[in-house]
């Protein structure tokens, strides 16, 4: 068994060098941001030694940049810090809600959106919210930066598109257009501390008269990866989110879901509830877009 080592590089370049060295040596390295998933994994099944590469000392990973057309969220910023930004909450209330749902206050102080994404759990709360907001991953690697839509980033249960020489530096989100807002809802049996049984993120834009002119709907915990449900978006675009359109969107989400039955809920239950969540999230997003 190789032991553990820990390194906290101060620059992107240093981090990439370390990752490449490990790749070339055939040794394992793993990136640490908040650590709320990683430390648990180290204590259960996967306890083999490795190099832990902490990206919290990298300046760019801690950047929160409000651009004219887009917003950049550094990979090392914790949910608690993000939720203290009024500006960010105003722009992406749904995404922030999703980030706020990851675990307890204690977990909030550590957990990051990028970590939630890289962990690639089917039930990760921020993933549907990121997809609904057309989020893009900014990936640092040996040949520079590359970008990838969030819905393409997660490749399966616990797997993502990163090579062992890359890490996520942050997330890029287009700023919402006029009368555009988002919402994320998840279902858990308790009020807190659970993993999502189902989740739905909705972002939508309204015309002046309240007609939905654009929408993105994403669902989580009901398939191996979070899904962008275009049929659901189509169902509400052109409507004023009347009961009929919402029902169609809801059915589209239930139809797109391919859930499993496990200790957290039955497949049938998840399929039903994801539709309910889509409907409710859409209404919240609409109310926000109007306000």
């Amino acid at each position, binding site marked *: *068994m190789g032991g553990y080592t820990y390194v906290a590089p101060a620059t992107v370049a240093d981090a990439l060098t370390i990752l490449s060295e490990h790749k070339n040596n055939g040794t394992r390295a793993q990136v640490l941001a908040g650590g709320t998933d990683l430390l648990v994994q180290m204590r*259960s099944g996967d306890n083999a030694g490795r190099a832990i590469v902490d990206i919290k000392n990298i300046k760019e990973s801690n950047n929160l940049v409000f651009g004219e057309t887009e917003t950049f969220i550094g990979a090392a910023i914790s949910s608690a810090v993000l939720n203290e930004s009024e500006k960010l909450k105003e722009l992406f209330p749904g995404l922030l809600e999703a980030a706020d749902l990851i675990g307890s206050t204690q977990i909030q102080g550590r957990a990051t959106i990028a970590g939630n994404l890289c962990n690639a759990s089917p039930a990760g709360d921020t993933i549907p919210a990121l997809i609904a907001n057309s989020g893009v991953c900014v990936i640092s690697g040996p040949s520079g930066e590359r970008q990838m839509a969030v819905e393409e980033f997660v490749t399966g249960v616990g797997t993502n598109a990163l090579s062992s020489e890359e890490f996520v530096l942050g997330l890029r989100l287009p700023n919402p257009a006029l009368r555009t807002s988002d919402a994320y809802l998840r*279902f858990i*049996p*308790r*009020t*807190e*501390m*659970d*993993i999502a*049984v189902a989740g739905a993120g909705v972002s939508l834009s309204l015309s002046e008269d309240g007609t939905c002119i654009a929408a993105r709907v994403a669902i989580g915990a009901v398939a191996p990866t979070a899904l962008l449900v275009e049929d659901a978006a189509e169902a509400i675009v052109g409507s004023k989110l009347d009961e009929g359109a919402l029902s169609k969107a809801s059915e589209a989400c239930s139809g797109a879901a391919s859930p499993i039955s*496990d*200790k*957290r*809920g*039955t497949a*049938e*239950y998840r399929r*039903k*509830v994801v539709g*309910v969540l889509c409907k409710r999230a859409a209404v919240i997003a609409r109310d926000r877009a109007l306000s």
Partner: protein
Amino acid sequence: MAEAVDYKIIGERPVRPDGVDKVTGRAQYGADLSLPNTLIGSVLRSPHAHARIKSIDVTAALSMQGVYAAITSEDFASPDGEVGGEAAGSASDLAKNVMATDKVLYHGHAVAAIAASTKEIADLALDAIVVEYDVLEPVLDIDEAMKDTAPLLDPDCYTQNLPEKAEKPSNIASVMQLSGGNLEEGFAAADIIVEGEYNIPMAHQGYIEPHACTATVNEAGQATVWCCTQGHFEFRSMTAALLGMNIADLKFIASEIGGGFGGKTVVYLEPVAVLLSKIAGRPVKMTMSREEVFRATGPTSGTHCKVKVGAKKDGTLTAASAWLAYEAGAFAGAPMGPGAMCIFAPYKLENFFVEAFDVLVNKPKVAAYRAPGAPQSAHAMEIALDDLARELEMDPIDLRLKNAVQEGDQATYGPKFPRIGFKECLEAAKNHPNYKTALEEGTGRGVSAGFWFNVGMQSSAEVHVNENGTVTLVEGNPDIGGSRASMCIMASETLGIEYESIRAMIGDTESTGFSNVTGGSRTTFATGMAVVQACEDIIAQCKARAAVTWGVDEDQVEWQDGQAIPAPGVNADVKPLSLADIASQAHKTGGPLLGRASLNAQGPGPSFAVNICDLKVDQETGKVDVTAFTAIQDAGKAIHPDYVEGQMQGGTSQGLGWALNEEYIFDANGVMENAGFLDYRIPVASDLPMIDCHIVEVPNPTHPFGVRGVGETPIVTPLAAAANAVRDATGVRINDLPLSPPKILEALDGND
């Protein structure tokens, strides 16, 4: 006999004497002790729920650097007979549970243990132990387990308590029956009969502190063990039996204990740590991970119940019958007895029949959990009564009032009830604002009632009067929920001195007399009685010392308000002598003052409870939100009402958790799938409303201050209260627990 009296401090709410250490991090719990030169002990656990152990080879592990001891069941004694107090059971089964012998009977069952210089080395050494298993089919479902065709956990298990010896072995370890009157006639006399079938899942006590201990054995074979336990004397007996040691060679020191609820009344680690230390010649510390706590300590039984109740149109019960099957886990000893005895206990019933089964399954061996067995059977009965009330269009509290037992009534479990407060609890519920408040749309209300016997058993106490008149109490019951405060209050009231001048300590097994576990709701009752008697011993001594001082006869001295005074009519020109006066002169009047008492307390007072539960159900997701909850219970007399309410609120929270979310989930191989607090979902702060408490005080005549036990009854009632409220909110009856969102939604959709 205690009547409504004006007490000086009983019923007040002073700060607990051990409080400061517990809010500053000073208090030492099971895992907080570190002795120099300590090794870490770790347990190898079975990856199978049911398998024969063909061989265990520890040689590779033992040869590793940093490994100092490796043990298997061969290193243990082969005890027979029974051990333990309230949770007494077969010593041989206990030994096999602590370390598997020929078979492993649940996933997580201990098969070997290691002591090493660090946790990492110990864990690596566990990986180096080679165990060959012959994997057998696990028996996981109680109904399947009871069938003739089921694989057997124990081929020598012949059902006990049958009229004739069983012809062949089975997984039914024992049966019991309770009956009275004539069931057929009773049901024939009924205008209405309700019946139902109910499943309640296996659930864990969920104490936040994992089991932990440190043991050190010297060259003379004398062992000292620090551990978190509900009863260090019983842990000592069990450890002595399992290791074939002389009790005199074992000293147990109870650390502070981070919750138990019955789960820390049996040993898991302690004998292992002693054995490892004996071999290694160094102290050995062992702590369980949360996962080990779930997989390998004793939860309470999953239970399958069938109940049938008959009544007249006016609500008078004419007959009731129950069939109750309790999972024992890997070894016999499910709480089917108390479950059977409690189910009909609150009601006047001439004609009844209860049959209960103790059933082996490949799951962890159950341990006590707050009113063991009663919540499961009460859940069934209290739902049946709710159904009955609905069919009769009768108020559910009125239905219970109509049939409630009172003093002098014959209990279905045997004795005649002494003075009890069930009707008072029901009346209090009926008059409670919670019961009168109108329900909001989408909300439902459920009520239920429950009973627990409470126990007495053995306790010891000593009272040391210091030279300035302050007092040190020594007793043998670990303080899980504020019992030091109650002991100090009772001593203060008895002696007539300030609460603040009394300190209470939990003596180790060498510094106070034998005491049974802190459990069975017995501590404030029985140990409290011992404390009061020990204080009375001091008063008698003080009177004698005053008599010597004053040159009068002892019977010419009285004790009043913490002072010796001359009895009325005694002509003595003396100043009263306070406890401090007497203590300061004790060296002149006969030496230090030491009072003591030991007893096997008789006459515990049964405690009844009634709950009102309001909740809202999300019709689209099936999620339940408890909006209001009122717990009403007869405490006899609340010595420290905060801690009585604390028991009521804590039991409510556990009961609601069990009702709504908590359950052991096993896969087809018998592996628990939710062995952590993430997926074994105990209530969090945001899940609950304030829990309103109403303490009824109908004094227990056998206790000097009227105390009944209060700790256990609170968990008996919330299961059915929640289920009845869900029925009220949705119109759909769900008999099985937990009332999880998928289950509720399925029922709602089925109803469309």
